[in-house]
């Protein structure tokens, strides 16, 4: 099967307008005859749900949390980018497109990225109208801050809780449609598989997490807004229940999975304190606007940070990258921290951290200003560590954070299964091999609110005569049986090793060899270990309780079974790419000064993997063409 990205013809800046001028529409009277299933209620899934329901489609939204307001978009802190140029600092849509393509190390699709930059402008208007209390100047106008990898201030923010505020607006828009009767929400429901009829995505099999009941739901199209899978590393900035299961099971039904190994390791999370740890809390990248990162110049310097004078400190980002300093992109900052820690300059009990210091900023701006900008982050830091960061530097460390990879989608956000769409972090689009800070909230919101509702009509226009999709068909029977069998199989293992313990072991393998720095030997070792662990899981996982009732251990086990499969594909994907690009850093392919070295001649493509069963995969390549940007070596020096 050849990949068709369905990019519209015309100049880059006209593509989205031309697409909209020529797409098919569904008339308002027909929309209520059309059912759409949305999975996930975060910024992408929730935005799609609300916007599709506003248009009059019959929307059914499924999510495992008890309320849409808890989706993990809620935890995004720093901000959302938009090319408004409110600061008059020379920002344009093209500049934002340029920064995003370059930030992604020339491994994303031009037309998708340009559209995201274009729609960023509308998104800020939309969210403001919904009542998002963005940060403002005393004049009353909207304020901006700067984020890594750019030379302008285009990030809009609501203190350090921007994700929460955008999600509240999205959740409220959903609730409004629930009241209007165009949206039905199924909270505490988990998608277990997809039903295809004549090759089209026509329904889902779900488990009611409260009663354990297996249910069938049908629709004319299915949209996945299920987020990323960084939780595969066990220790990550993600929520405990974030998972890959919906996208992975779609993959096993025929949706290609693109660039699975491209995971963003965030440079500013709290370091691990012990073996019991379940989560690494993120400290927003926005802190790097005013915080300076350093380690002691001398190895194993035991002095307290405030006792180390300036001449004994190594501000290594400012030293290595004078143009961008502390605001280099995340992959660069994480690798630089790892380099210092590996060289013996790490700080903290486990020597697994670097300092993020606000002394200079507090001296210049005063405590009050710093408090207003980052107050909640300093409070959170104190709650978790017991340390007052106004008085001594924070200790931070890299942690798994964002999945640039995801289901392969075309310009319409359609996967390789007709009628199945993927929005937000669940798809692979827009960020290439590295995502810029504050582009995640943007992509999720833009996909859900502005792109998907417009592109899906092109598909649904052909469905107006289809009529309701029945669920009492052999196709539904078959998938439901497979789902039930799998649950029974999990419960029949009755082993001795707790699910979390196996997940931690998987996380260790992945963080060691399939994270910040990769090499052939390590990846081959990882694949072997993953296979061993998968065997251990199916032979000895301790999963008890019943399927016909609430059972969170069974939920975790089902998700881990999927992680144990995608883990292998992640390693395989990393192994197949003999170059370094963005977050994918292969030790064999680096420049003389230790920076990532791309190989555009052989690897200027997105790797889209087709499931062949067992597990085994076939690689398809979407070759990337750059007409509107000069492909250069990515440098932040």
């Amino acid at each position, binding site marked *: 099967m050849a990949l068709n990205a369905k990019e519209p013809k015309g100049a880059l800046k006209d593509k989205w307008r031309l697409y909209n001028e020529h797409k098919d529409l569904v008339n308002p009277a027909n929309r209520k005859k059309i059912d759409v299933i949305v999975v996930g209620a975060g910024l992408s899934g929730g935005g799609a749900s609300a916007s599709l329901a506003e248009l009059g489609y019959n929307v059914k939204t499924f999510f495992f949390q008890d309320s849409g307001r*808890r989706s993990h978009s809620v935890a995004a802190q720093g901000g959302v980018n938009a090319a408004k140029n409110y600061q008059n600092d020379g920002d344009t849509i093209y500049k934002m497109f340029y920064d995003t393509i370059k930030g992604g190390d020339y491994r994303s699709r031009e037309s998708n990225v340009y559209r995201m930059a274009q729609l960023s402008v509308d998104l800020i208007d939309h969210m403001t109208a919904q009542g998002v209390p963005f940060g403002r100047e005393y004049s009353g106008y*909207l304020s901006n801050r700067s984020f890594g990898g750019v030379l302008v201030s285009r990030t809009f923010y609501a203190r350090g809780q921007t994700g929460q505020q955008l999600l509240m607006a999205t959740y409220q828009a959903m609730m409004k449609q629930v009241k209007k009767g165009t949206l039905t929400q199924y909270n505490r429901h988990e998608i277990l598989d997809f039903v295809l009829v004549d090759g089209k995505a026509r329904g889902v099999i779900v488990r009611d997490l409260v009663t354990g009941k297996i249910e069938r739901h049908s629709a004319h199209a299915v949209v996945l807004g299920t987020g990323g899978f960084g939780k595969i590393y066990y220790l990550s900035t993600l929520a405990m229940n974030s998972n890959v299961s919906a996208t992975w099971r779609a993959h096993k039904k025929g949706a290609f999975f693109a660039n699975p190994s491209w995971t963003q390791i965030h440079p500013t999370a709290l370091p691990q304190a012990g073996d*019991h740890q379940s989560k690494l809390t993120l400290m927003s990248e926005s802190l790097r606007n005013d915080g300076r990162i350093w380690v002691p110049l001398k190895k194993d310097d035991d002095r307290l940070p405030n006792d180390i004078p300036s001449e004994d400190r190594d501000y290594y980002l400012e030293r290595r990258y004078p143009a961008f300093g502390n605001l280099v992109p995340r992959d660069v900052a994480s690798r630089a921290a790892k380099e210092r820690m590996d060289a013996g300059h790490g700080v903290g009990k486990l020597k697994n951290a670097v300092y993020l210091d606000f002394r200079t900023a507090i001296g210049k701006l005063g405590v009050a200003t710093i408090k207003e900008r980052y107050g909640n982050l300093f409070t*959170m830091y104190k709650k978790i560590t017991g340390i007052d960061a106004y008085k001594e530097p924070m200790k931070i460390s890299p942690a798994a954070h964002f999945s640039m990879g995801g289901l392969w989608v075309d310009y319409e956000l359609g996967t390789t299964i007709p009628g199945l769409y993927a929005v937000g972090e669940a798809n692979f689009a827009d960020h290439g091999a590295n995502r810029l800070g504050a582009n995640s909230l943007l992509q999720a919101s833009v996909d859900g609110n502005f792109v998907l509702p417009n592109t899906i009509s092109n598909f649904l226009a052909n469905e107006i005569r289809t009529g309701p999709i029945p669920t009492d068909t052999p196709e539904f029977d078959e998938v439901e049986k497979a789902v039930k069998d799998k649950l029974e199989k999990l419960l029949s293992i*009755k082993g001795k090793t707790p699910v979390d313990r196996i997940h931690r072991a998987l996380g260790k393998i992945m963080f060691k060899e399939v994270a910040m720095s990769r090499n052939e030997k390590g990846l081959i070792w990882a694949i072997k270990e993953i296979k061993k662990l998968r065997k251990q899981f199916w032979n000895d996982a301790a999963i008890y309780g019943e399927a016909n009732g609430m059972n*969170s*251990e069974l939920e975790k086990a089902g998700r881990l079974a999927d992680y144990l499969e995608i883990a292998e594909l992640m390693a395989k994907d990393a192994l197949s790419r003999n170059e370094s690009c963005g977050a994918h850093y292969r030790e064999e392919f680096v420049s003389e000064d230790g920076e990532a070295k791309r190989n555009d001649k052989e690897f200027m493509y997105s790797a889209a993997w087709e499931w062949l069963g067992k597990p085994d995969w076939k690689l398809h390549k979407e070759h990337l063409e750059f007409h509107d940007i000069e492909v250069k070596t990515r440098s932040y020096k």
Partner: protein
Amino acid sequence: MKITLKIWRQDGPKSKGKLETFQLNEVEQDMSFLEMLDMLNESLAVKGERSVEFDHDCREGICGQCSLVINGQAHGPESHYTTCQTHMRSFKDGDTIFIEPFRAKAFPVIRDLKVNRDSFDTIIQAGGYISALTGNAPEANNIPIHHNISESAFDSAACIGCGACVATCKNSSAALFVSAKISHLAKLPQGQVERKERIEYMITAHDEEGFGSCTHTGACAMVCPQEVQLLDIARMNYEFNRALCKAT
């Protein structure tokens, strides 16, 4: 640390519950409270016993999913913390800790420590939004909003919808939760048009869902993880009375 746990176990909404005792001998001070419960559940899994069900997700204090009453206090011993941010350093070796679900008529227990908070969704559905459809928005800088007003709206909008206010209130009132949303939207110019309908519908939904009345004790504001202010309840009452006398 050695810790004795007395945990509420209840099979389903209609079953009778009871406290069950567990012993953990290797708890560390650096553990979060929920990691301590993870440890308990791992030990139960090895023995083939049913795990203790509790709600949790982000584990960084922002999703609002965790919902425990620890030694009689919603979320735990520290003021303005969520359960997930509570660490074992707040307890001593040899302590006995009582863990129960949030209790309120409008929050029925689902199983063990998990409760059903759909009633909060119902209140927001009644009117907790601005009806701006996607694609209709004017240019964001067209309406300047004073810095202080925006910041004050944020203070109210910061509510994480956990329900600790309800669990703490002796009347099981959701006044602080409702007032946070009312205040967030009433403070902003964008929220003015639907101001009257919003307060009327939301208060009606609050009462219909079985939440009690507010008698201004202020216990809710003492536990609120986001420090939503009691003043928001005063504003809600003002909005309610205003709606009674005004046409819009």
